[in-house]
C-alpha cells in the first residue's frame, strides 16, 4: 500500500497561523492534525483583577476581524451578572453594530479568502488581475461594514464605544440615514453574490453534523437566544459548561471543544442557517431558495453560498434597524459594583462565542472564560478532513493539498481567536 503525507507548511488565506498534516496509508487516512503553533495568548488571565467595565475593550483585542463579537459577548455576560437590561434601542444598536462586523467579515472571506479556491487562483492579487469587478465589490462591501463599525464603535478595528449598559456615544439619525444608499447597494450586491456563488463547483461531500447555534423566537440570531442543536440540545448560556468541554491535544495551542459524551460539532453559518432558516428576512430566504439552498446544508464547501445569504440578512437587518432608529435619551445606563457571575453567547461571524465572568463586590474580575468559535470548530475541521481526504487518495499531491486547504477555509477559521496560519502536509505510506 502506498503511503503519503500532505503537509501545508503555511496555509494561506486564514486568520492566524497554523499548519496541517495528513497521513494517508493506501485508501485510508491514518492521521490528521490541524497544528496550531501560535503561542497561547492568556487573555483570560489578563482580565483577572480588572474592573468589569474594562472587559469589553480588553476582550476585543483578541481579534482584529471580529472584535465586536468579543465586545458583545462580554457586555451581555456582565450585564447578566449585574441584572442590568439595557433599553430596547440599545439592543437594536448592538444588532446594527454586529451587522457591520458580519458584512466586513463575510465580504472578506467570500471574496478575498475563499473565492480564489473556487476560481483556481493562489491568492487575491492573482485573482484581481482577472476578476477586477469582484475585488472592487468586495472592497466596497467591506468599506460599508467598516463605516457601520466606525460610526457605532469610534473606529474600524478594535472599536472603543461599546460599554456595559450601552454605548459611550450613540449616532444621530442623520448619521445612520447617511448609510442607507450604501446599504441598499450592498443588499443588491449580496443578492447577486448568492447567485454568483451558487454557480461555483462544489465537491460532493456531506457530513452528518451536530449543528449548534443560537435560536431566538423572533429573529435570526446575533446577540441573544437559547443555544440549540439538531441533536436535541436546548439550553441557556448559563448551562453551556455543563454540555461542552474543552480538551487539550498535543499538536495544538488552541483547545478543542466537544459536546460532552458526543464529540465534535459545527458552529457558524451552516449551523445558523440550518437551525434558523425560517427566521431569515424574506429577501434572504428568497435568495437562498433561488440558489437551491434549503436547510439543512450538510456540504461544508457550500458555506460560501450560506455566507452570501447571511450578507443579504446583515444588509436587510441593518436597513430595518436604521429605519426604526430614534436616539436613546441616554446612551448608557449606570451600572453598579456588585459581586456576580454571568455568562453569554453571541453569534460571531464564524459561530458562537461564549464568555463567562465572575467578579467581586468591587466589580473586579475574579475569573474569565472565553470559548471562541474556531476552538469549537477545530475538532470538526479535523473530522471533515479525515473523511474528505479519503476522496483524494488517488489525486496528485498538489491538487490534494489544495483541496485540503480549501476544506479548512470552509470554516473561515480565526486561529488568532483560538489562540491564533496554516501549513499542510499529506504523508502517503505503502502498506
Amino acid at each position, binding site marked *: 500500500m502506498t503511503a503519503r503525507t500532505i503537509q501545508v507548511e503555511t496555509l494561506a488565506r486564514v486568520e492566524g497561523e497554523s499548519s496541517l498534516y495528513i497521513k494517508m496509508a493506501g485508501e485510508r487516512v491514518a492521521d490528521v492534525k490541524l497544528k496550531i503553533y501560535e503561542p497561547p495568548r492568556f487573555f483570560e488571565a489578563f482580565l483577572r483583577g480588572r474592573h468589569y467595565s474594562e472587559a469589553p475593550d480588553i476582550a476585543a483585542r483578541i481579534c482584529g476581524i471580529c472584535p465586536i463579537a468579543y465586545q458583545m459577548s462580554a457586555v451581555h455576560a456582565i450585564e447578566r451578572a449585574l441584572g442590568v437590561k439595557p433599553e430596547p434601542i440599545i439592543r437594536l444598536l448592538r444588532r446594527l453594530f454586529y451587522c457591520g462586523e458580519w458584512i466586513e467579515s463575510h465580504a472578506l472571506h467570500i471574496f478575498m*479568502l475563499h473565492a480564489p479556491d473556487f476560481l483556481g487562483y493562489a491568492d487575491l492579487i492573482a485573482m484581481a488581475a482577472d476578476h477586477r469587478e469582484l475585488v472592487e465589490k468586495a472592497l466596497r462591501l467591506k468599506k460599508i461594514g467598516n463605516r457601520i463599525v466606525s460610526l457605532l464603535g469610534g473606529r474600524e478595528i478594535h472599536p472603543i464605544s461599546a460599554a456595559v449598559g450601552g454605548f459611550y456615544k450613540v449616532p444621530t439619525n442623520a448619521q445612520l440615514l447617511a448609510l442607507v444608499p450604501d446599504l441598499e447597494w450592498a443588499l443588491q450586491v449580496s443578492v447577486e453574490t448568492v447567485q454568483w456563488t451558487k454557480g461555483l463547483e462544489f465537491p460532493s461531500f456531506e457530513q452528518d453534523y451536530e449543528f449548534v447555534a443560537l435560536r431566538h423566537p423572533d429573529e435570526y440570531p446575533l446577540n441573544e437566544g437559547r443555544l440549540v442543536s439538531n441533536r436535541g440540545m436546548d439550553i441557556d448560556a448559563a448551562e453551556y459548561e455543563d454540555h461542552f468541554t474543552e480538551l487539550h491535544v498535543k499538536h495544538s495551542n488552541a483547545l478543542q471543544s466537544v459536546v460532552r459524551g458526543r464529540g465534535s460539532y459545527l458552529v457558524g453559518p451552516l449551523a445558523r442557517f440550518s437551525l434558523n432558516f425560517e427566521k431569515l428576512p424574506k429577501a434572504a430566504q428568497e435568495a437562498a431558495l433561488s440558489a437551491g439552498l434549503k436547510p439543512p446544508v450538510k456540504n461544508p464547501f457550500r458555506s460560501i453560498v450560506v455566507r452570501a445569504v447571511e450578507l443579504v440578512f446583515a444588509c436587510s437587518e441593518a436597513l430595518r434597524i436604521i429605519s426604526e432608529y430614534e436616539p436613546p435619551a441616554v446612551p448608557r445606563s449606570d451600572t453598579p459594583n456588585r459581586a456576580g457571575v454571568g455568562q453569554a453567547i453571541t453569534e460571531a461571524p464564524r459561530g458562537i462565542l461564549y464568555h463567562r465572568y465572575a467578579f467581586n463586590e468591587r466589580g473586579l474580575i475574579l475569573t474569565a472564560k472565553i470559548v471562541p468559535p474556531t476552538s469549537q470548530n477545530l475538532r470538526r475541521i479535523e473530522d471533515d478532513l479525515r473523511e474528505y481526504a479519503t476522496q483524494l487518495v488517488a489525486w496528485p499531491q498538489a491538487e490534494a493539498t489544495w483541496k485540503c486547504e480549501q476544506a479548512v477555509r470552509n470554516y473561515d477559521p480565526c486561529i488568532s481567536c483560538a489562540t491564533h496560519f496554516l501549513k499542510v502536509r499529506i504523508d502517503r505510506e505503502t502498506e
Partner: protein
Amino acid sequence: MLILCCGNPDRGDDAAGILVAERLKELSIDTQVCTGEPSVLLQQWDGAHDVLLIDAVVTGSPAGTIHVWNASRTRLPPQPSESTHGFGVALAIELARKLGSLPERLRVCGIEAGNFDLGAKPSAAIQKAVEDLADRIAAECSHQSQDSLPVLL
C-alpha cells in the same frame, strides 16, 4: 502630498510610522495615521495623486536604516506571511496596482525595525531614524512650496 503613517505603538520598533507622524505634527505638517489594513488604506489614498507612506519594515538591514521605494514603479519586497495577519501595506499596493487605483505617485518610506516585542520601547536607532526621516520630509515639504525637486526620491 498625502502622508500616511502606519504602525503599532505597543510593539517596539513597529511604532516607527506613528512616531514620524508625531514628529511631523510638531513641525506643523499634516499626516494621517492608519493601521495598514488594505481596504482602509485603499480608501485613504483614494483620489490622492502624491502619497508618501511610512511604516516599519524588515529587510535584513541594520535597525534604523531608512529605505525609500517608488511603489508606483516597482513592487515592494515580498512579505513572508500569507495569513490575513500579513495583509498589509504591500498587499494593498499590489492590489491597487492590479485594480488600476494606485496613486500616480506613491513612495514608501520604510524604517528598518529590529524588535517587535509587546510593550517594548522603540530602540535608540529607530528614534534617530524617525528624527532623520521627519527632517527629510519637512525639507521636501518646504522645497515643494518653492517648486523645488523632492528630497526623498
